[in-house]
């Protein structure tokens, strides 16, 4: 059964994504979550007509010693949410909160949204970052492209949505 998130609006013409908890039970995602290393979820929203794009990132790591989930979420609104979560149920609840991913400049927006799941934390290796910096000179590009340069994606999803702001 295809995984389908829901898209909502937030004040200031912001599009937010609500990801279903079933994604955490995906076989490949589950295996990485259990690895004791960070699983990084990179959300990228691109406007279908135009070059505008937004991004959000979620990082989850299970600490085997404390048996807690160390989670971090940052959306397009710039707010960082960092927590220690003790149970799987609480993790699923936290996961299902709306993540601001795109800031629109019109009353109607059509988006292509991708969610890429990466092993390890999203910070790039020193070597890779140096190459990006040398070639692109832009932390924006490093954030959006750099995360896919070195790590092999575990899984990815792609959706389309259209949102009307009232």
């Amino acid at each position, binding site marked *: 059964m295809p995984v389908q998130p829901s898209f909502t609006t937030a004040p*200031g*013409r912001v599009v937010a994504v609500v990801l279903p908890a079933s994604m955490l039970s995906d076989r*490949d995602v589950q295996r990485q979550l*259990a*690895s*004791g*290393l*960070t699983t990084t979820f990179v959300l990228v929203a691109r406007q279908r007509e135009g070059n*505008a*794009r*937004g*991004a*959000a*990132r979620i990082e989850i790591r299970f600490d*085997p*010693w404390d048996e807690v989930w160390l989670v971090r979420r*940052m959306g*397009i*609104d*710039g707010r*960082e949410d960092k927590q220690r979560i003790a149970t799987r149920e609480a993790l699923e609840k936290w996961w299902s909160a709306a993540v601001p991913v*795109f*800031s*629109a*400049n019109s009353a109607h927006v059509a988006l292509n949204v991708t969610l890429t799941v990466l*092993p*390890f*934390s*999203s*910070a*790039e*290796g*020193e*070597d*890779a970052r140096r*190459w990006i910096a040398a070639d692109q000179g832009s*932390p*924006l590009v*490093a*954030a*959006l492209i750099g995360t*896919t*340069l*070195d*790590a*092999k*994606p*575990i899984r*990815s999803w792609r959706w389309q949505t259209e949102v009307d702001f009232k």
Partner: protein
Amino acid sequence: MSRLSLAAFVVVSIAFSALAQEAAPTRFFIEKIEVRNAKRVSPQIVIAESLLREGADYSEDDLRAASARLRRLPFLVSADFALEKGTERGRYLLAINIVETKPFFYYIDARPTLIDDSRNVIDYDIDPIEESKDAALGFRWFVGGRGVVHVGMTSRRDRQTFTTDYSAWAVGYTRYDLFGTRAFATLNLRLPFDSPAEGLISPQLVAGVPLTANQTLTFDYEDTFFRRDKITLMNTEFNRQDAERLISLAWTYNSTNQPFVPTRGTIVRVSPLRSMRDRSSVHFIHPIPGPGPDAYTEHTNGYGLDFTALRYWELSELNSVSAGVLAGWGSVDDRQNPAVFTHIKYRPAYQIVRAGWSRNLWRDESKAGDSRVEFDARLVKRQRNVRDGEVAFGVTPNKESSIQTSVSWVRRSLWGTLRLGVGYAWGY
């Protein structure tokens, strides 16, 4: 517009935040490393090649680089990392789950090129292979914890015109983690069979030192004996010898995701090369019938530098594009005794600009390899700046340009990598 600026600002903030967070990344004290699912591959070699050591602490970046490095090994298809509780709080066991290739291995690149002779003639070999200069077919056994014995067939190719391309039977031994330094050395004994002559047992020594998880310094020494015999002509015995010595040093930066069919990452290689070739044989320089053949000797000295820069981008789960530049320069000095031609000196050079696209034919990621269709296009230019002895080159042009394309299907499996395709090239 202001919203777009805000969005861009926030995305930039995310990037900066990631970098700031990286200033003090979480580090994990690895007290033990366990290699799991190893059937034939030696766990010691996997640990050595990861460049990780028990009793040290590592960041996730370090672990990711190690995982990527292991994926580039020719005898592993994948290497997944997981941390488990160690013996005490704050200590971890690093589990490396590997998927091995089979002991029989092959790397076959069969892409014959159709040359369009209706345009300018192309006067050199078409070689679509960019990275792996050695085709291979054979068996590999892991012995003694840190050693690998291999036997099979290899094919030596490079892009310099003053070195010899040939195929050879080979038996060799590679020792990993030399003296606990993570360095490796391979000793090969090769028997050329697709060369200027029948070939004799020829040694090759390759030694490498990993500088970082992505950078390696490699030294290659090859003594190749193509011929060493005697021939009797008109009651006179002559010695015939043909031998080539190649010494090269290569610095390689490699952040690609796999060794033979990369779809992500960068390869940069700078490799100076020194070649020496000695030939002695016999030739007829007088009219027949005449005084008979004369012996001659020839010594060729060559210096070269090869540069490779290739980058691969994954556009999506299925599509990958690549672009790169390959270039080389040389200086060759050829002396014969007695001189038939004058002293020959020339400086060969080549430049290749290439672009490629490949598409995964399997939608689902597989640990057992992949199957892709590829399209490559290359703009190739070659020059020869003759300083002395122009007459020796006859009518072959000193400058050539061509466009070469190829379409191929590549299948990487637990057994090896097979690339089948066809190329089309024309000179201009």
